[in-house]
């Protein structure tokens, strides 16, 4: 068997060795001083370059110029080699005559001949251009270079623009502005250069600047706002592509939109910043990951998480193992520190992700971290201090907040039981303010050949209960090296360590919310010292003696090689390594009552490695005057390895800190060691007409080790069209500055899991520890990937003098051959389900984004953004089956209904003052929301005071409120049922009219008859609005802070306010341990608010 690693190595060596190959064909020396010198632009002064090592100079051309101007000769060389020349008439007289006839002459030799005695040198820039500069005698006294300095500001407000890119066109000389909008480009060779400044959200601007030796020249820019994103470059599977060429929607979230926001992680960044993205918070446990969906649901069994790339390296897109008692997971995605992120691209549907291959039908999230820029080191430091806080917990009418807000004193339950929690904190509440601290620092800089970005961060936050918190820290180093013209090598590495302490939560006997909210029915009732007469003396504090943590190390490193010189050919190779290991551990200490009096220790040790090899190459060729063809081919391989070992030990001899051989009983309760490889290749052709019509066709072919033996390779086609209509000469539509129409049709798929195709048995123990087999899975040799076909269409337009952009997209997805877990008759022996390609899902939606400046004046600007998402995921033909996702959650998939939905008992006369009439198998509602509306506003006052706010409505979702179901009956501590249950008792005592004003739904939900209650009665709509964040930022004037280039102070609040009719603690939570695809609020602690103050400064 060939080692995949060896093959990568071969490919890498071939790529890297190529520039040096064929050295014997070339002269060893530079041209004589009569001809031009070939130099490479650098940050100091141009350095001589070995012409043998520059591909474009080795290229062979033919010239037949018996009498041509210098200008014409250079144009002829450009036409054949792709090397473009920049020069000023001050340096060289273009009308000078040249005479040359040659076949198979190299570009270097041709230039030497053409420029002989012209008195110029050829200075090559990394982007493939050649600048002709005045030749200087190296023996003459050396002249010094000049410096360009300046400021980039907003044309309307004169506000400084930070992180704008200022470059000398055609060279590698450039930098980025600091927070004060200032920039400085040293070591600029004397002469006239074209200087440009650009920034996302602004129109690019250029100006000519004449640089004089040993002098500083000033060039300021005032950029006009432009909402058009047509010229923005996004990264696709084939490489860098301008937005105008894409036939599908790609959303970009740039660092400017998150730099002031109180974002902890990538999950926070995705909330409310683009359409088509659903993020649900899941839990109020610090460190817990959320649920992320792009364009809803298009798979029942294979997950709907988008695949994730970080700087071209694919990382694991799932979650870590579920904490035993925290019943939540962490997301490896969140290990990318928000302060390191330059921008995020969200590619949402199969029509756009076809070339990413199998597994990409859930969409792609690409994260690009910050990189260095040439220039002196620029330091950025951020310090955040704050606290987490939760307000009233549970139903508004419950004065005790489910005994969390108020646990003090003696209480009497609805059934007359008196109880007291002797361990209630002195504050009288189980809730506290959890301390939050975050620190990050980074430095970036470099030369024109080598740039670097190095950063570190540390974050610690405590939860709002006596236990629970998250600590994480990490470092990042991104180095970019440009060894030759057009070549760029990159090494991007990050390491993150995370430690999450979980409190017991969700559906289990030790859960904090379960026990505390049940009052006298808590399992912790062996307290002593309560007030005289108290019948139940609680000691709920003991539940916090059970400890649980997730300890995680995440290492991502990627090597990239990119070739993109001026010319028709470009290529890139990415090799990636994503390693994530985590320990999960839960300890019930010796003496832990009531569940584990002799103690128990549970653990899991897991690691996952994902190797990426990704190659793509492009060839551009003009066809006539108006058509440009771009042909792309590429290949990828992903090697996914996973190891896990689950451990358990019970019954300790006594107190102490146990390890996994401390108990009388020890055992390995689970182990897995799997490896799955997905490999494929693609080809794509883009035909562009006059740079305004773009027709793209592509094909992806994949193999996957999890496909059944009968299945083989899978092919996924795509086609798309983009038309920048506003570029037409006849375009004079009032109020619409630019308009692009786009449409795309494409397929992608999701692979089944390892061994899903094979009939297998599980090795277990029986007969008191003897080896045994039991049926595992019945197998299906015809198993293949499910395929999702998507058609999308939409437009991108700018209006209001280019200040406002509107993007609209409609899409329709059809998942066929859907992988459905099919139940076989148990009488055939296999009780677990088997995946079959038998289902059909349909998913359609509308995404709308409008953003821009509503008002813009010197001392006041008002920028607004509105994202609207509508999605409808429906089960199609399932062969008449009902797919059970989680029966206790009453969650199923049925033909014609949203995927997934709640089904079960429904009171058909909810508002009638009568006994409930029950439909036993009714549709109760969709699990996930189908509409998301996210308004965002930014106000800037007096140039240095900024207010950012983001809100979000999520509509159409439902949640099973199992907390209410249990507390209404088991402990009778569900406040909304108090009055109803009082009337039910009166009715039972003989008051025939007691229930006259009690509705049927209230009677069903609050029943005191155990045989009449059901979870389904508690499926409730989760429609909510949340004020996600508000930030006030003051840019401190530099004059007030000596030695600092820029500084700002931000005051932020996150999750500040919620409006909902959902009666539980939080409409966003879910007990993740139950099932990742169903959602049940089973004593899950609500999400909390965070208030922070952040000081950032750069120097």
């Amino acid at each position, binding site marked *: 068997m060939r080692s995949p690693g060896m093959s990568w190595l071969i490919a890498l060596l071939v790529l890297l060795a190529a520039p040096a190959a064929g050295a014997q064909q070339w002269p060893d020396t530079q041209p004589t001083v009569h001809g031009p010198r070939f130099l490479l632009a650098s940050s100091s002064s141009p350095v001589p370059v070995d012409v043998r090592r520059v591909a474009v100079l080795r290229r062979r051309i033919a010239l037949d110029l018996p009498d041509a101007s210098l200008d014409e000769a250079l144009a002829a060389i450009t036409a054949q080699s792709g090397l473009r020349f920049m020069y000023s008439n001050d340096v060289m007289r273009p009308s000078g005559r040249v005479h040359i006839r040659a076949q198979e002459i190299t570009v270097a030799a041709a230039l030497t001949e053409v420029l002989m005695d012209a008195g110029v040198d050829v200075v090559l820039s990394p982007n493939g251009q050649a600048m002709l500069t005045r030749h200087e005698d190296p023996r003459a006294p050396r002249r010094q270079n000049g410096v360009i300095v300046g400021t980039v500001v907003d044309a309307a407000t004169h506000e400084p623009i930070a992180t704008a890119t200022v470059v000398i066109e055609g060279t590698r000389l450039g930098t980025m502005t600091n927070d004060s909008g200032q920039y400085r480009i040293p070591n600029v060779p004397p002469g006239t250069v074209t200087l440009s400044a650009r920034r996302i959200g602004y129109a690019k601007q250029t100006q000519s600047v004449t640089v004089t030796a040993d002098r500083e020249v000033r060039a300021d820019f005032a950029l006009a706002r432009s909402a058009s994103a047509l010229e923005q470059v996004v990264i696709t599977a084939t490489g860098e592509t301008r937005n105008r060429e894409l036939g599908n929607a790609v959303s970009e979230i740039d660092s400017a939109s998150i730099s002031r926001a109180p974002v902890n992680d990538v999950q926070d960044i995705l909330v409310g910043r683009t359409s088509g993205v659903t993020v649900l918070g899941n839990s109020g446990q610090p460190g817990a990951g959320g649920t992320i969906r792009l364009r809803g649901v298009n798979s029942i069994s294979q997950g709907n998480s988008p695949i994730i790339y970080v700087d071209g390296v694919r990382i694991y897109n799932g979650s870590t193992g579920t904490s035993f008692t925290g019943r939540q997971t962490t997301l490896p995605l969140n290990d990318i520190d928000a302060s390191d992120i330059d921008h995020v691209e969200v590619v949402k549907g199969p029509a756009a992700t076809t070339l990413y291959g199998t597994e990409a039908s859930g969409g792609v999230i690409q994260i690009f971290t910050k990189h260095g820029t040439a220039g002196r080191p620029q330091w950025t430091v951020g310090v955040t201090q704050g606290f987490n806080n939760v307000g009233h917990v549970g139903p508004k009418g419950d004065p005790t907040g489910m005994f969390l807000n108020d646990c003090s004193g003696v209480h009497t339950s609805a059934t007359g039981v008196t109880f007291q929690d002797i361990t209630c904190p002195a504050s009288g509440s189980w809730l506290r303010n959890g301390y939050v601290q975050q620190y990050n620092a980074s430095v970036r800089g470099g030369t024109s050949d080598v740039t670097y970005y190095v950063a570190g961060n540390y974050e610690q936050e405590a939860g709002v209960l006596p236990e629970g918190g998250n600590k994480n820290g990490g470092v990042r180093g991104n180095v970019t090296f440009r060894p030759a013209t057009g070549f760029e090598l990159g090494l991007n590495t990050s390491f993150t360590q995370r430690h999450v302490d979980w409190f017991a939560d969700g559906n289990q006997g030790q859960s904090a919310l379960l026990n505390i909210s049940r009052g006298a029915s808590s399992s912790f009732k062996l307290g002593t010292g309560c007030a005289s007469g108290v019948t139940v003396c609680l000691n709920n504090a003991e539940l916090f003696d059970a400890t649980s943590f997730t300890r995680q190390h995440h290492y991502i490193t990627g090597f990239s090689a990119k070739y993109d010189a001026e010319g028709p050919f470009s290529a890139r190779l990415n090799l990636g390594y994503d390693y994530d290991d985590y320990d999960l551990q839960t300890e019930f200490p010796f003496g832990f009552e009531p569940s584990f009096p002799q103690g128990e220790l549970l653990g899991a040790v897991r690691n996952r490695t994902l190797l990426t090899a990704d190659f793509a190459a492009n060839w551009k060729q003009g066809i006539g005057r108006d058509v440009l063809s771009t042909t792309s081919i590429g290949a990828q391989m992903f090697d996914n390895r996973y190891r896990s070992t689950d451990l358990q030990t019970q019954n300790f001899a006594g107190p102490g800190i146990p390890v996994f051989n401390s108990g009388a009983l020890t055992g390995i309760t689970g182990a897995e060691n799997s490896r799955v490889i997905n490999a494929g290749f693609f080809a794509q052709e883009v035909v562009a007409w006059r740079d305004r019509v773009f027709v793209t066709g592509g094909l992806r072919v994949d*193999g996957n080790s999890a496909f059944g033996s009968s299945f083989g390779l899978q092919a996924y086609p795509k086609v798309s069209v983009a038309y920048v209509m506003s570029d037409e000469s006849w375009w004079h539509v009032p109020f619409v500055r630019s308009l692009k129409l786009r449409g795309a049709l494409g397929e992608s798929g999701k692979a089944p899991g390892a061994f899903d195709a094979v009939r*297998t*048995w599980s090795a277990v*123990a029986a007969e008191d520890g003897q080896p045994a087999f039991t049926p595992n899975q019945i197998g299906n040799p015809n198993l293949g990937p499910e395929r999702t076909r998507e058609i999308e269409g939409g437009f991108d337009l700018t209006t209001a003098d280019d200040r406002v952009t509107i993007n609209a997209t409609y899409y329709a997805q059809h998942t066929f051959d859907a992988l459905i877990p099919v139940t076989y008759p148990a009488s055939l022996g296999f009780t677990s389900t088997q995946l079959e390609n038998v289902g059909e899902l349909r998913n359609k939606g509308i995404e709308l984004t409008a953003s821009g400046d509503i008002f813009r004046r010197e001392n006041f600007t008002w920028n607004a953004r509105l994202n609207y998402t509508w999605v409808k995921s429906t089960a199609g033909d399932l062969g008449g089956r009902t797919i059970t996702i989680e029966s206790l959650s009453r969650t199923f998939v049925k033909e014609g209904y949203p995927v997934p939905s709640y089904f079960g008992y429904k009171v058909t006369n909810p508002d009638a003052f009568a006994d409930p009439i029950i439909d036993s198998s009714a549709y109760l509602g969709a699990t996930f929301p189908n509409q998301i509306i996210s308004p965002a506003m930014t106000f800037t006052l007096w140039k240095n005071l900024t207010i950012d706010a983001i809100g979000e409505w999520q509509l159409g979702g439902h949640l099973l409120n199992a907390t209410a179901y249990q507390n209404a009956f088991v402990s009778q501590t569900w406040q909304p049922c108090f009055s109803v249950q009082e009337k039910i008792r009166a009715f039972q005592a003989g008051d025939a009219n007691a229930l006259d004003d009690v509705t049927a739904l209230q009677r069903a939900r609050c029943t005191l008859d155990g045989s009449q209650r*059901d979870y389904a009665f508690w499926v409730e709509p989760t429609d909510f609005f949340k004020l996600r964040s508000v930030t006030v930022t003051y840019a401190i004037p530099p004059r007030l802070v000596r030695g600092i280039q820029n500084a700002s102070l931000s005051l932020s609040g996150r999750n500040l306010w919620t409006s909902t009719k959902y009666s539980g603690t939080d409409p966003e939570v879910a007990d993740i341990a139950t099932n990742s695809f169903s959602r049940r609020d089973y004593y899950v602690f609500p999400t909390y608010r965070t208030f922070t103050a952040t000081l950032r400064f750069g120097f």
Partner: protein
Amino acid sequence: MRLTSILPLALAGLACAACDLSVTNPGPVQDDQLNSPAAIPALVNGMSGDLSFALGNFLGGDGGPVMTDELTHSGNFAAPNDYESGIITSTDVDPDYQNMQRARWVAEDGLRRMQAVLGTDFESNPNTPRAYLYAGFANRLLGENMCQAVIDGGPAQSDSVYFQRAESSFTRAYETANAQGNTTIVNAALAGRASVRAALGDWAGAVDDASRVPATFVFYAIFSLNSSRENNDLANQTHVRREMSVWGTPWAATNADPRTPWDTVFTSSGKVQTGNDGTTKFFRQDKYVLLSDDIPLAKGTEMLLIRAEAALRSGDTTTMTNFINQERDVYGMAPVPVPASMDDAWALLQFERGAVLWLEGRRLWDLRRWHAEGTNHFLDGRDTCMPIGASELASNPNLQ
């Protein structure tokens, strides 16, 4: 060499790497790997394990005893909540249906595999009588609890089909064990066959088998602390959790009976502990205290009661009482007098069977057949057996 020429080479390198798509996943065992004599012991251990798992879960978290008068529901699980009301649905019983069917299929399919793999050595292999025995007990577990039989994806049949298959399997277990001199399996096979012959109405045959089993003989379904799958879930649900209580059952009045041991759990304040439902008094069964406590599948004392019932059915209450007192003697209990009437005799026999077979998964069959004969009324107005599981109904085309 031009840079562009690297492209085919680079692609070739990646493509070769991509050629290797083999999965390594050493956990699951592929089916054909079991076709080896070396795999037979573990295959038969698996038959035992699946049977214990089915029985343990039926008695434990799935709440089987609540279908009968053995225990009262005192917890939060949904299925026992229905059982307590006398409602037994296909949805509620589905996990138990699946576990029981798996235990049957694993044993019967395993025997087919063993015959193919062992060939002429099949009869003499020591695992063969074990496999037949587990096939017999798995069929009996289904027959005693299910309303109808379904075999290997076929149509619904009379529940007696399970008993017929059990009788056949016990007979083959007896024959092969007897030839190999395995006394334990001989006795277990005879005891198992006696119980299913009685169920089929062959009381003569049942008495013949029962009389050949020693009074003190017990054959167990094995449970262990070794792994959670091997745990006795009834012990878990009553000694770790408080899901079922003896409170409110006939056995709550017999706290001195060694066959039905239980105790009362108190809170720190001295009040009687309630179950996990927060309301039902928690009287804790003590027949299975540890998660490793085994559950009897066949007992000599049951054989005495089969002989007693056969005598009663022939109207011989004296002989019946004689057998009952022999059974009581095994447990060190005082003899009882001959009942004065047939009704008293039936009441005595039914109590004794209830006590001897308490929490062994046998009670629903006894109550069901006595209910049908009109000698017991606990199941009046209640569902009397477990319907075919919902998953089988939904997936078996022969049941559509």
